[in-house]
């Protein structure tokens, strides 16, 4: 436990970032699902639509865990002061920039591979924006307080999306294996 505490951020900070990850990833997935519902209604019954919902929420739950784990591992690998100190707001900001960047990528990808140069530019711009934002928030206390406040508000969604994700996952496991 002591080793965990030494290398990893505090539990409440991880939970705060997990809450934010659950919020953005589930909301995005939910948005796609709602967009699809009118066409599903033409040929699926309520049970089938609910199962599709369960698949999407279960996947979003696993994706949230994966993303949060990625951030936690990153914090363990980087020097303490870079990322582990203030993990709750740094993780939140990373999610924020990552989300904007992922949406941009989703919209700009057509059916051709964009090429290494374009990807390098995209990754560099994302990282630079993140670093700039992290530095700004690090040095401007009022901004930091505001970000932490927002992160805490968003993390409330943990109580909604965590049970939805867990129940969905159980439903899918039951469908596949039982």
């Amino acid at each position, binding site marked *: 436990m002591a080793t965990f505490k030494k290398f990893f951020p505090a539990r409440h900070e991880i939970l705060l970032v997990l809450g934010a990850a659950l919020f953005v990833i589930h909301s995005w*997935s939910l948005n796609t699902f709602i967009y699809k519902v009118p066409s599903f209604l*033409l*040929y699926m019954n309520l049970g089938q639509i609910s199962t599709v919902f369960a698949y999407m929420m279960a*996947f*979003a739950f696993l994706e949230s865990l994966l993303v949060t784990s990625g951030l936690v591992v990153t914090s363990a690998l980087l020097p303490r002061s870079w990322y582990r100190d203030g993990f709750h707001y740094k993780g939140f900001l990373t999610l924020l920039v990552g989300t904007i960047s992922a949406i941009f990528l989703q*919209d700009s*990808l057509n059916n051709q591979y964009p090429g290494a140069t374009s990807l390098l530019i995209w990754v560099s711009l994302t990282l630079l924006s993140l670093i700039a934002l992290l530095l700004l928030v690090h040095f401007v206390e009022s901004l930091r307080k505001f970000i932490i406040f927002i992160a805490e508000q968003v993390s409330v969604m943990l109580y909604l999306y965590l049970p939805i994700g867990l129940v969905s996952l159980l439903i899918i496991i039951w469908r*596949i294996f039982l």
Partner: protein
Amino acid sequence: MTHQSFSRRDFLKLLALLPASIAFEPLSKYASSLVNNTNHIIIIVFDAWSANNLALHGYPRLTMPNLEKFAQKSTVYHRHYSPGTFTVPGTASLLTGLSPWTHRAINLGGAIAKEHQQKQIFSALSSSHNSLAYAQNVYADQLLYQAGPFLKNHIPFGEYNQNNTISYDLPGLKNDAYLAFSSFEDGIFQHGKGRDGSLFLGPLARLLSLRKKLIVENSRGDDYAIGLPNCDEVFLLSDLIDGFIQALKQLSEPSLVYFHFHPPHDPYRPTHKFYSQFSKDSWTPPLKKVHPLAEEPQSFQQIKSSLNLYDAYLASWDEELARLFQFFEDSGLRQKSHIFITSDHGEMHERGLSGHSTPLMYEPLIHVPLIVSSPGQEQQTNIYSPTLSLDILPTIANLTGNSIPSWAEGQLLPALGGVENSARSLFSMDAKTNASFAPLKKYTLALTRDNYRLTQYQYPTYQQFEFYNLTEDPGETNNIYPQQPAKAKEMEAELLQKITEVNAKFEEKQ
């Protein structure tokens, strides 16, 4: 010639033979079914393949010479129709022998109604034939999953493709393929057809898939003029034929084989050899008025280019098919099989539209090829009476000595057990925006009979009848419905009666 009188003694002798003849009749039937059962049934479907683009049916361009050669020793059905205008209803009707209003797979992504799901060709032949099936169209593949245990060998969608991106056929999800498909392919990972439901992993997976596609295109795409053929995953035409031949080589016991190939479905990706073959010829398709239901209508020039590409893609596909036809001959499989070559629906390049995603219903979209090669057939037989995709299921059941399933709505194909019926009524329907479990309120319904076609467009913003004399006006350019000929009134009554009939069971439920 002398006539001998038939005596009372002769009559008694014959009478004595009666019990024996009764006893032997079932045995002779059994023997004949055993002989028939040794033949394979091979059904080959090319997706979005219109009969109107074949010289065999009067098209001025020779798009598929190898197929035409194959047809010289086959039965060619010149007026064969699909009851649907896109993969889901067209394939479901072909597999089940049911009309779209019965199987209810009428929406993009829709499924066959639960009570009909396993009423497929595989169950009809399950007592006599092993089964092997493959579909390179995800929607058709979903229908194969619905056949359940009756389909004994199901080749996965990605088997002959280059970049495997599909999730629903992963081992853990196979038992839940339909809902996994709707969740993954229609939600979480949309493969460029919309925003992925997965915020981070979606674009990442797409990047990896596009990279793989680029690598394949760079290493194996030299033969193709404008990129590799694509069916959500990229593939090579040659790989399809190689894979199919390998699968056919494994056949031992009498088998029912269903192979549903993606070509010539769009995107049309011809090889260099045929890319400009048809853009240089002097033939120009007839100019037809843009239809009010054609969304975002294309210019005539765009349609012409698209048609040229479609024909070039047909020619590219045909070149590969030559190897398959040669294999049928060399392996002796042609002498041991009934080979059906057909399509799930056609493709249209007119009236402001290229493709088949449309409520429009004209000859290029529903007139599909059907070519059947039977063991020992040495001459071409031509059938000019109208036939429908629904006829394939009862025909193959009959050919293999199985009883014709009670659910089958089609008739036996002429020359394969059936008789020609030129006055038959054929219905084709598109109701992709109508709920599958509700009465038909939004639809296009075409009735083809006696070489006339009556089409009803029934939509909230567009209600219209069109009526064409297909003998005098095969291009369907002169709508004579406003003149109200007696034939149109008669067919209108039949069409409306059909709608009332198919909607009646829903109204009973309510």
